[in-house]
Structures are given as structure tokens and as C-alpha cells.
């Protein structure tokens, strides 16, 4: 059972390193959506990265050190929310596994993990949000990012909220649940295989005729946008939060210049 929301839960926004670096608008969209849902949102200043690059490279010691730095920064809040299934999944599903030999930290990690959510699933499943006050004129297709889908069960929530965006039509792609080939360091360690996977993804996106591709994880979005723009395809790529928060007009699509 999910925790019952208080009237105005105190939420820590974990921005994620990719949003911080590449796409701050997604962080501001998250702020707007969380506040509209009735949360008191703060951005803990001591946050950096969830540690996935180390954890998935087998560098357990560094991943644990990063978790030790991050846990105290996020602990004082009712909930931790990240605009990424992959980073939320790291804290929720994997932090505790880093402390198998340290019961005290393991317990802290477990407690924090249980209160950590991906943005859109938090809005729907915890805050009970049923609709958003946003408009988007276009046909979108939605890519299910792997960690969000398989670790956190995010599938229906973004579609439910997108269905309430005025003017938006959803055209599902074939194999929306198939990996785009990003995989963190995978895309640079095995670039040919990754390229093949993202090329397949791009074909399926194009086949829908949608003018916009949305997803909930910036890693996948950078990968897909990078391939689409290299091929000169006219598909706009955005984080789902930008559309749900009605902020698509504030920043050009990923990989495109202002006015272009």
C-alpha cells in the first residue's frame, strides 16, 4: 500500500544530474507540477547524482560513498521525487543493496527508498492527481523508459495525465517498451549496438506519424533526440513533465535551437 499523503507533504525535488546539466526546464516543470498537486517543494542544496554511473560500472565502493553523501541530504523530507524513473529507481530499489554489510546505513537507505518516487507516478499514485491544466497542440508518442517501466511499474500514469492535456493526441508506437539503447555508459562502450537499437526505436517513432516524442527519462531522450536530429527527422523530443506542466513553449525541443 502506498503512503497516505498529508495535506501538504514536504517534498524534496531530486533534480538528477542530467536535468541539472542539460535541461533545467524539466526541474522547473517538476516544481510546478508538484506545487499544483499541493506539495511543499524544496530543492536540497547538497544533492548531486544518484551514483548510477559507478554502480552500473561495478564500482560499488564509490556508489556507496555517493549514497552516503546523498541520503542525509534527502532524509529530512516526507518524500523524494525525481523527474526520472532511472534515478528514482536507483534510490528506491538499489541504495539499500549498497549497504549489505552496514545495517545502520541499510536501514536509512531502505527508509529513504520507500519514500522515493518518480515524478509522474508520484503525482498519480501518491497525490491522486487525475488531470493537469495544460494544452499541447500535437500528436505525441510515448516511449516507456526501462527502469521506470520494469522497476517502478510506470506505464499507465503518464498516459492517464497526457490524456487530460488539451489538444494532445497520443499515437502509440510499436514496441514502446523496447529499450532505446541508451543504457548509461553502454551507449559509449558499445556504440554500434546502441546505435542499432536507437535506430530501430527511431523507425518505430516515425511510423506513428507523431510530431512529438515524450518520455520520462532524460538519458533516453538525449539518445533518441540525438539520433532523430542526425537523421534530419522532424520529430520534436521533450520530457513528459514539460508538456504536463504546460512549459513546452518556454524552451525549444531537445536538440533544437531557439526558433529552429
Amino acid at each position, binding site marked *: 500500500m502506498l503512503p497516505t499523503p498529508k495535506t501538504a507533504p514536504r517534498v524534496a525535488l531530486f533534480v538528477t544530474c542530467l536535468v541539472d546539466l542539460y535541461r533545467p*526546464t524539466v526541474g522547473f516543470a517538476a516544481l510546478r507540477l508538484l506545487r499544483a498537486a499541493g506539495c511543499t517543494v524544496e530543492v536540497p542544496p547538497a544533492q*548531486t547524482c544518484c551514483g548510477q554511473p559507478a554502480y552500473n560500472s561495478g564500482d560499488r565502493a564509490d556508489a556507496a560513498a555517493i549514497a552516503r553523501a546523498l541520503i542525509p541530504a534527502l532524509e529530512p523530507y516526507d518524500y523524494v521525487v525525481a523527474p526520472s524513473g532511472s534515478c528514482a529507481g536507483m534510490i528506491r530499489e538499489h541504495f539499500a543493496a549498497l549497504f549489505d554489510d552496514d545495517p545502520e546505513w541499510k536501514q536509512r537507505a531502505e527508509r529513504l527508498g520507500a519514500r522515493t518516487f518518480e515524478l509522474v507516478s508520484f503525482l498519480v499514485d501518491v497525490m491522486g492527481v487525475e488531470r493537469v491544466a495544460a494544452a499541447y497542440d500535437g500528436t505525441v508518442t510515448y516511449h516507456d523508459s526501462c527502469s521506470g517501466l520494469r522497476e517502478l511499474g510506470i506505464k499507465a500514469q503518464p498516459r492517464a495525465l497526457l490524456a487530460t492535456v488539451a489538444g494532445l493526441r497520443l499515437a502509440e508506437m510499436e514496441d514502446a517498451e523496447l529499450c532505446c539503447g541508451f543504457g548509461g555508459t553502454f551507449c559509449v562502450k558499445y556504440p554500434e549496438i546502441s546505435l542499432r537499437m*536507437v535506430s530501430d526505436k527511431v523507425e518505430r517513432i516515425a511510423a506513428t506519424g507523431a510530431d512529438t516524442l515524450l518520455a520520462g527519462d532524460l538519458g533516453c531522450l538525449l539518445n533518441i533526440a540525438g539520433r532523430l536530429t542526425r537523421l534530419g527527422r522532424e520529430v520534436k523530443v521533450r520530457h513528459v513533465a514539460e508538456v504536463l506542466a504546460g512549459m513546452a513553449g518556454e524552451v525549444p525541443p531537445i536538440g533544437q535551437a531557439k526558433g529552429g
Partner: protein
Amino acid sequence: MHITSPAFKDNARAALADPGLQRALANARTGFVAKRARAVAALPEFEALREEGRDLKNHVLAHLDFYLEAYARAVEAAGGRVHWCETAEDARRTVVEICRAAGARTATKGKSMIAEEIGLNDHLSASGIEPIETDLGEYIIQLRKEPPSHIIAPAIHLNREDWIEAFRTAHAHLPPDRPFAERKALIDEARSVLRARFLAADVGITGANLLIAETGSSVIVTNEGNGDLTQTLPKVHIVLASIEKVVPTLEDACTILRLLARSATGQEVSTYTTFSTGPRREGDLDGPAEYHVILLDNGRSAMLGTGFQDMLRCIRCAACMNHCPVYGAVGGHAYGWVYPGPMGAVLTPTLIGVDKAGHLPNASTFCGRCESVCPMKIPLPKMMRHWREREFERHLSPAATRWGLGLWAWVAQRPWAYRLAARAGALTLGWLGRKRGRVSSLPLARGWTEGREMPAPEGETFHARYRRLAKRGLA
């Protein structure tokens, strides 16, 4: 079998550039996935069955010695013999000894991944015993002198023209201009050629999908019936099985069988499911005079009690590779040894060493699709990560990677340093991509920019903008 796992990257590159292979893989990707999905949708209790299967195998692994001894006693009671083989070498030697004692010149074989694992065919040939593969896919790759590329569909990397070519070359006694208009013509030809070999064979060698402790039976599932002919026609039947194949009872075997066919081919049950218990008894109409079981460990008992124990639940259904986007892109041969795909990425390093097979657990996006379809709920991504951890501990990962990770981790533990680094990165990349919103070439990220643009950041980091706006009360 020659190991090419260390050259995984080159293998993968070659596979991606091979149009015939890509055509074959495209067909394989869609077929298996759709069939499994239909079979699972038609069985409402499939999820509960997965849990039952997992718990059953966990129970067996916790009491493996007990069930193996019970199984061996039951085999002997039925008149069979069990040969406990610790290593591949032990198993090969034992098989040859049995063949020699039977005066065997040819041995027919049902499909067996254990035979591949121990390199049995080469060893039999070198010992003067001709191995004859009777599974259609195995037969074709034997003609082509190549290893299987998939654990249940060994010739999945081939197209029909490859089959036709192999048959025209190998069956030189048949008219060279005979037509192969339909798939059936190929099957008929294989059947007629193999029928004589079945009848002439002195020894039949099969694998085992299951061993049943209660009855001493071995079980194979096939769709061609070749397994039945392999084990009933010759005077000696040798079963090759690894130790984790044992289950307690017939009922337990049925639990696994219900999961196996659905996960593998999307069938409710395989066309042939054959239970063999000992040699021919008085009054039996057919069956071998001798029944031997080669019980192979080959490193498996050493996995018990480690982070890799869960891998011993594997029932070799191939659902993980059928659903793996990496396997689907490069095929099985790229993995460079017997077991490809996600199950191979976990198992191969235990069998040939992570120093040789290090690429395999790394060549995964951790998309998790393998685990989500695994009938035994094996946490494959978690175990691939275990291997990455072992590599990292043993300093097998590249120096540049370690150095870069170390620097990044140092920064990531210090928010002030992290802010500085992120601001510098966002500014630089943002400036480089300011005109087009993207960058086409980055010397330090060539792997990325060879096939993709690098989208440019907005320019100011989130934290910088948030602080700026917060100071003005606008955040």
C-alpha cells in the same frame, strides 16, 4: 569450442554489418516474442506459476546433494548407471569410454547444450567415433561446421538459402538440381538422410531438460521426435545432464514443463515430451540395453552459496535472449562461446572466466526485459552487475574507465565541486551548440557522435537558475 568472447566488440560489429544475419534475426525477434506473449496471456495463473517454479528450484538448490543422491539411487534401481563428472574433461572421457565399450563407430545425438559446453563432438571425432546431430537445426550447423547461435534454435542465424546451400553441398549423392520449393522439401530430405543414420547408430546421446529424483527419469522436450529415435534405437543411451536439472517429483517436473514450453516457443507443451527411466525392461518393445547418465558439475556446485546461485534455476528456455535487444541486434555467435544472451552473460564468465568473458555482462543496457520474462524469475541484470563488480575489484576494467569514474565519484561526493563542474559543462556544451541546439562532433564522446548529434544543454544549470530565481523570490 573455440572461445571468441574476448573479441565480442569485433564480433558484434561484424554481425551488425552482415545483412543475411540481420534478416534472420529480424524474423526471430518478432516470432518468439509474439508467440510467448500469446501463450502467457492464455494462462491466467502464469505469474503464480513463475513464483512456484522459482520456489521449487530454490528448494532443490538448498538440498541439491539430497536430491542428486536420491535421483542416482532411483536410476540405479531402474537398471541405469550414473557417472558423476566433476569437469568437462571427466564427462568427455566417460562418454568415450562408454562408446568404446559398446564398440561404437557412430553416435546419434539429440540437441544438448551440455554436449556443446564440454566440446563433445570434437572429442568424439578425435576418438574415432562419428557424432551425428539429429535435431534439424543442429544437423545444419554441423554440416556448416559452426556452433549453435541460440540455445533452443541453434540455426536461427541462418536463412533458407543457407540451409539449401548446406544440403546441396553435403548430400552430394542426390541430384544437384533437385528443387527446394518449400520448407517441407528440406525437412523431407533431412528425414531421409537421417533415418539411415538413426538405424545404424551404436550409441544415442541426448541432453536432459529435467531429472526426476522420485523416479530416476530423465526428460527431454523436442518438436521433431528426433530425441525419441536417438534414445530408443541404439543399444546404448547416454544422457548428458548438469546437476541443477534435478527436481524432486513428477509433479514438480510438470510445473517446470508448463513454464518451459510457453516461455520458449509459446507452445502449451512441446510436441514430444519424453520420459526415460533406465534401459529396456523385460517385455518392453524397444529401448536401449544400457542407460547411462553423465551427471556434470563443471563449476556449478561452486556457484552455490554465492551471488550467482540464482542462475542455477535456469531451465534453458531462451526467453531472455529472445527478448534481449542486444542479442536481437548481434545474434548468438557474437557472444563467442556456447551460451549467448543474458543467461550467457551471467553463466559464461563462471564457466570460462570473467577475464575472457568480461564483455558479456557489460554489453547490456540493464533494460530488465530478460528478468521480466524469465520463467524462473532469475535476476539477470543484478548478476551481470555482480560480474562488473568482480571485474572492477580485480582491476580488469580499462584504466581510462577507472580513472574517469574515480574523478567523477570524487566530484559527486562534493556538492560544491559538482556545481562547478556541471556549470562548466553546461556552459561549454551550451556555447558549442548555441546556434543549432546540438553538437555534431565531440572528440571525447566519439562513440556518441558517430551516429547521433549531442543535444546542447540550455546553458545555465538547474541549480544555478534555481538559486538565481530564489534570491529574487521567483523560484
